[in-house]
Structures are given as C-alpha cells and as structure tokens.
C-alpha cells in the first residue's frame, strides 16, 4: 500500500479533510459529520483495523482520535475530529465493531451523548459519575489537606 493511499480513498469518497505528517504519524483532520463516510471509505480501502479510539478534552472542545491500521504495509493513520462539549458522538461500530467499547467509554468519561450505538450504556462508571476526563473535573485527592 503506498503511503498516500488514504489520500486517494478520501478523495474518491469526496471527504473534505486536511492531511499532515506529524511526529505522531499521518494525521487526517476532518469535520465530525465526515467521520462515518471517511472511515467507511478507509475500511473498504484496506485499513483493516481500528487499533484504538479515544477522546481528549482540548480545553475548548473534545477531540476524537481514531487510530487505524492497514496490515498490508503496516500503514498507520490517525483520524481526528472535534466535537463540542455536550455534543454528539456518532457511533462507527457498524464499520469497525472494535469501537463498541471505546465509544461507550469516551461518551461517559467526556460527557457526550452516544448515538447510533446498539448498546449506548455506561461502560466503566455508574450512573451519576462526573465525566472524569473533562479538564474541568478535578481529582478530589489532589487538594492538599491543611493541618492546623
């Protein structure tokens, strides 16, 4: 697989995106509405596996990262998009069933609503737990105890 295979696949699927080579590897940034068509095209075009999917609180919004791998040639691709706080995480489980667990985790730990998922329950925490991975949620133990 040539190094720019993802470019051809995304262009053929008419997905608006930017592609950069960073220290991390090849990073494709796109709009969230384009995630499903983009991943669909990439999955059909030889990116066999979703290695990982997770979300990060950037301080302004939530950034989703889809880490894909093509086993022929071991090409790695990071697809990133940004969701507003309290936004919607659209499931890609029917493209990559590997996303079934991490999507539930990302939704609960960053306070997003999960749509299109066959089982959109919480995965790790119980009902009522704060979205722990938000930067605005502090760790209680991090506050110093004042001794008089």
């Amino acid at each position: 697989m040539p190094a720019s295979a993802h470019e051809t696949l995304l262009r053929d699927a008419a997905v608006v995106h930017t592609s950069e080579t960073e220290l991390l590897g090849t990073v494709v940034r796109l709009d969230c509405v384009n995630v499903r068509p983009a991943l669909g095209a990439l999955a059909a075009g030889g990116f066999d596996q979703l290695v990982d999917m997770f979300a990060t609180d950037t301080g302004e919004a939530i950034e989703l990262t889809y880490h894909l791998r093509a086993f022929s040639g071991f090409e790695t691709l990071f697809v990133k998009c940004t969701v507003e706080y309290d936004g919607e995480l659209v499931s890609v489980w029917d493209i990559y069933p590997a996303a079934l667990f991490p999507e539930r985790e990302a939704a609960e730990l960053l306070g997003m609503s999960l749509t299109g998922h066959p089982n959109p329950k919480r995965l790790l925490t119980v009902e009522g737990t704060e979205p722990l991975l938000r930067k605005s949620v502090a760790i209680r133990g991090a506050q110093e105890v004042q001794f008089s």
Partner: protein
Amino acid sequence: MSDVRLDVSRQPGPRWVLPKGLRRVPEGLDELATEHLILNMGPQHPSTHGVLHVLLELDGEEVQAAEASVGYLHRGIEKLAESRKYHQVGTLLDRADYLAGLHTETAFALAVERLAGIEVPRKADWIRSLTMELCRLASHVVWAGTFGMDAGAMAPFLYIMRDREALLDILEAITGGRMMFNYVRPGGVFADLPAGVDTKIRAFLDVFDTYLEETDALLGGNEIFQARIKNVGVISRDTAMAFGLAGGTMRASGIDFDVRRDMPYAAYTELDFDVPVASGGDCWDRYVVRMEEMRQSVRMIRQLVDGMPEGDFTAKVPKVLRPPAGEMYAAVESPRGELGIHLVSDGGPTPYRMRLRSPAYYNLAITDEAIAGSLIADAVVIIGSLDIVLGEIDR
C-alpha cells in the same frame, strides 16, 4: 444497578443485529418459546479472572445472548496520570495490567522517550527485553494454569505456580518487586542487573525447559482437555480483525502480527525468534499459540542473557521531564497483545492526556459475540482462552 440489565423480552434471538458474517445465533432458533433465564456470572466468580461480570441470557444450557459488564476495578488511571509527573506515572501503570507491569511501564517510557528525543543506552534496551520476556513467562504460566482450571484440570495450576514462584524470584532480584515493579523509567531502567543473576536465570531455564514440556503434556496431552477446547469459541480472521483483537488471540485467528517483530522496540531487532500463528481461531489454537510463545520467550531470554552488552543502564534524564508539546503513540507486545500508550503533551511537567490502549479490553469486547450460541460450560472456557486481566480493562 438498573443499567446492567439485559432486555428480557420474550422474543428470542439477538438483541441487536451484527454486521453480516458476524452473527452466530441462528434466527428462529427457539420456536418453542421456553422461558429464558438471566444469569449473573460474576463479578465474584472463580472463572472470570478478576471482577468481570457477564450477564447471560440462557435457554436451558445454551447461551442466547451475553453481555460483559466491566468497570468494577476502574481507578481512573488515565485521569490520575494527568496529575503525575512523568517519572511518577510508572507506579500507576504497574497497577493497570498487574500481570505484566513491565510491559506497560515500557510502553509509557517509549512514548516519553520518542516525544522528548531521549536516546536510550543499548544495555537498557537489552535489560528491558530481558525483564519483559521473564514477565511474559510469568504471565503466560498463570494463564495456562487458570485456563486449565476453567476446563476442569486442577493439577497444572499447582505446577505452574512453582514455575511462577521461581520467575518472580528472578524478577525480584532484578527489579526489587514481585508484581509492582516501577523499574522501567523514561531513559532506561532504575538499576543495573545484580551480580550473578545470569547464573540464576540460566539455572531456571534449564529446568523450565522440562517443566514447560511437562505442563504441555499434562494439559495439552490430556484428551479430556482437548475435547473441551477444540472447536470451541471459534473466532474467524475477519471477526478478529473487525473487533481489533490483539496478541495471541489474534494470531490464533490467522493474523500474523507481532509488535516485537513488526514495530520493533527495545532489543527485539537483534534477537532471533519466531512468531507462532494458527489459523483455526478456536480455544485450542489460542492454547497452542501461547504455549509456543513461551518456548520462544525462553529462546529469547537465553540470547539476552548470553549477549547482554556492557555500558550504562540509563541515559541522563532531567529530574523533571518536560517533553515538547505534541503527541506520540508507542506500543509493546504485552502477554495479551498490542499494548499502546498514546501520549499527549502540552510541554508541561505532567502528561496532558494519556490513553492506555489495552489489548485485553479489545479482546474482551468479543465475548458478547463469541459466547452467544455456546453452552454455559463453554462460555467459561472461551473467557479463559482470551487471557483477560481486568485491571487493564477497567484501568
């Protein structure tokens, strides 16, 4: 716990429709409309290997649908790492995968080193590989023993605990800890190999060669054990790929991928080893692949002990690390598969975000799919064959 109930509808069949080719419950399987029973397996159950809770929807002995419920061991390691300095994160990661702390530590150290541009001395790489392979053996023997117990073989567990004890003694001599090591640090390792440890390792390997074959004969040579696990829990290549499986579970389904060989780190480029691959994808293949992995680990440990280079065991690293802003992904082959750390740095003294890509997390996600359609007794064996560690899944 109202959120962990299965949908107890009187309509039999799967609760959601999986993509074509992934579904295992035949449609219209239960036309007699017998009452289904919801069974809670775990979280306290000897064959769930920790605190795994599986909800089974049963029609007699047959599992109609299954749902793994995790999170009982969630400690928020990813969140806690955001308030720890880079040198302090190792202690958290030991507690993620408690059977393979050295692998998780190394993945993190690699990510930090690649981001900060730290050159690791050759000896540190070799010590890392040596301790990781010892740790892999210590983890795989636990798996072999507990998997045997799942299938009804009690004796091998007692034998492997003897071997694990010796392995933990060696690891203790090198790292100072038996399970919670905190030995691999960004830049190298915490301490040099102690004098005489090579003799200790060689002496162990000489008897372990025999012990391993003995365990294999006791377990794999047992007809009852074979009958219990052959053609049970078959995971096809496509399913393994789609669900993002890792490690031995993935290689047993015919995907020839090993991080040590295909994305090399530490000293693995200099070692001679084979990657066992099977094509059947059943529990037996997973057993065969892992047993062969142990033989390969023994082979690697011999090379590592014989060729251990001289030199420093750590690079000069500042007391407070501040890797430049950016992202880095580093993966290692843990006993359970590709264990990755995705590190996001903002240039500060603590990680901005640390994502632990846990192999057992992805391996576990297939239980719902692999168990449905099997018998309860097989469900136990299938979960055992996946080699899950809940500490790593829940983080």
